[in-house]
């Protein structure tokens, strides 16, 4: 047999590893049912956990119906969700676009790196939440202040990972690009960006997580609508069931946005998904 032939790419790409999707969904469903049942038994049936501290599944369902139908804390559930998702999406998109471009520029040019890095070293250790007071003083309690805080928190991981991504590209690839006379925009689009892409997406995932964390924290401080505002109001009303509704909503929104990013990631890097 000719030892230099590879296995055909078609055969390789159809090979699946691990469980099928339907089987994994089934298992996840079973886990969910068991957890809810256990929760019900511990709170409503045995009273092992006092329902005054941790609401029963039935109470949470009631709170969910209340906020979805009549509304709670200045809005119905979908209005709160829409508001938070919109703010996160805008803040994250803005921060990530600026951050990725700056990170790539720092990776590509020593001069840019030397110029930007000192500023970065000073700003980086400040936790994003520490910007909230300044944001409020500058921009008030409105959306602009929240966007600013999201920007600050989401910006840093995007910059650092894009920068590292460029630096991690194999040196011979730069030499090959020089040999093939790949310059200018082609160099960015076909060498730097795809080479850094795996690391860029790592940065985007971290940025997205940071955006959610800071948004909820910012909304806790002051908001009219939003998921953080549900939590804030429910805490003031001492309403544990509604607190849980708020937390579950944050979890589902965060998961959905992370899943959307993962979907984009798979499509952006076809060479990594084929085995």
């Amino acid at each position, binding site marked *: 047999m*000719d*030892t*230099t*032939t*590879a*296995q*055909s*790419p078609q055969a*390789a790409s159809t090979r699946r590893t691990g469980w099928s999707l339907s089987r994994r969904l089934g298992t996840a469903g079973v886990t969910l049912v068991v957890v809810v049942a256990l929760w019900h038994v511990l709170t409503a049936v045995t009273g092992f956990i006092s329902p005054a501290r941790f609401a029963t599944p039935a109470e949470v369902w009631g709170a969910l119906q209340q906020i979805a139908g009549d509304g709670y804390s200045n809005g119905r559930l979908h209005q709160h969700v829409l508001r938070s998702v919109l703010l996160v999406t805008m803040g994250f998109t803005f921060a990530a676009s600026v951050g990725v471009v700056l990170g790539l520029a720092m990776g590509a040019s020593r001069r840019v790196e030397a110029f930007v890095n000192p500023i970065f070293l000073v700003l980086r250790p400040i936790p994003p939440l520490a910007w909230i007071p300044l944001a409020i003083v500058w921009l008030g309690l409105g959306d602009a202040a929240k966007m600013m805080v999201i920007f600050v928190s989401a910006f840093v991981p995007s910059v650092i990972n894009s920068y590292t991504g460029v630096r991690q590209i*194999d040196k*011979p*690839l730069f*030499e*090959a690009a*020089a*040999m*093939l*006379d*790949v*310059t200018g925009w*082609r160099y960015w689009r*076909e*060498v730097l960006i*795809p*080479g850094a*892409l795996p690391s860029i997406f790592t940065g985007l995932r971290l940025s997205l997580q940071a955006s959610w964390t800071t948004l909820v924290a910012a909304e806790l401080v002051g908001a009219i609508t939003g998921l953080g505002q549900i939590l804030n109001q429910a805490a003031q009303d001492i309403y544990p069931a509604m607190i849980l509704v708020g937390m579950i909503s944050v979890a589902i929104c965060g998961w959905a946005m992370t899943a959307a990013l993962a979907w984009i990631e798979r499509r952006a*890097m*076809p*060479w990594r998904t*084929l*085995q």
Partner: protein
Amino acid sequence: MAVIQFQHVGRVFRQNGKEFVALKDINFEVGDREFVAVVGPSGCGKTTCMRMAAGLEHPTDGEVKVDSEIVTQPGPDRAVVFQQFALFPWKTVWDNIDFGLRSLRVDTEERKRRIEQIIALMGLGGYEQAFPHQLSGGMQQRVAIARAYVLDPKVLLMDEPFGALDAQTRVVMQEELVRLARKNPRTVLFITHAVEEAVYLADRIVVMSRRPGSIREIIDVKTVRETENWDAHTCIEDVMDLPSFVHLRTHVWKLLREQQLGDEH
């Protein structure tokens, strides 16, 4: 007319105020459509010689010329085949081969024709849309050779191109390169530490020694190959059995061995 010229080439590194002479007074030429192999122990600076011809490194003394012009920077007229292939993982086989052609502003039809031709020649048919990581090492190096050949460069620079391959694959690739080089001769500077590979592939062999890196001897293989009709044999093992091949190989080995003894004393 010589295509690649090394004229009194030297390379000195300075580190902590100390000078280290990596290359000293290198003089040789590669003629038009000539295949020259540079052999030497590791650390003799043979790869540095190739990288200077490519424009990836620069001499501190003397000049490296390609087509009578002093080399200043890398370019598609001096195509490099790297030891570690250096294929772009995010590009398919076709797009990797096409990448340099697009820099040369060859029109679409001509590009397609040339890529199809080289893909057929290198036995890459059926893998056009595969990504490099889906291929074996041998296949990846075929793509890298195709990417260099397709540019129709003035010179081909190969830096131990089969060094990362397993023994069987290596033999197959050596046979194919001979087939390619005889059918479609190019000006080639081939770096290797494998003596048999050099004798089998090259028209001339430059044997180097180290500390400082310099030329030990330049050996003519082509005359022997043609008078003894090596190319009548298709398999590398048959050529390696011929007395004329064994004689040349032993000669190169002895040159390298003398250096080793010299190092130990």
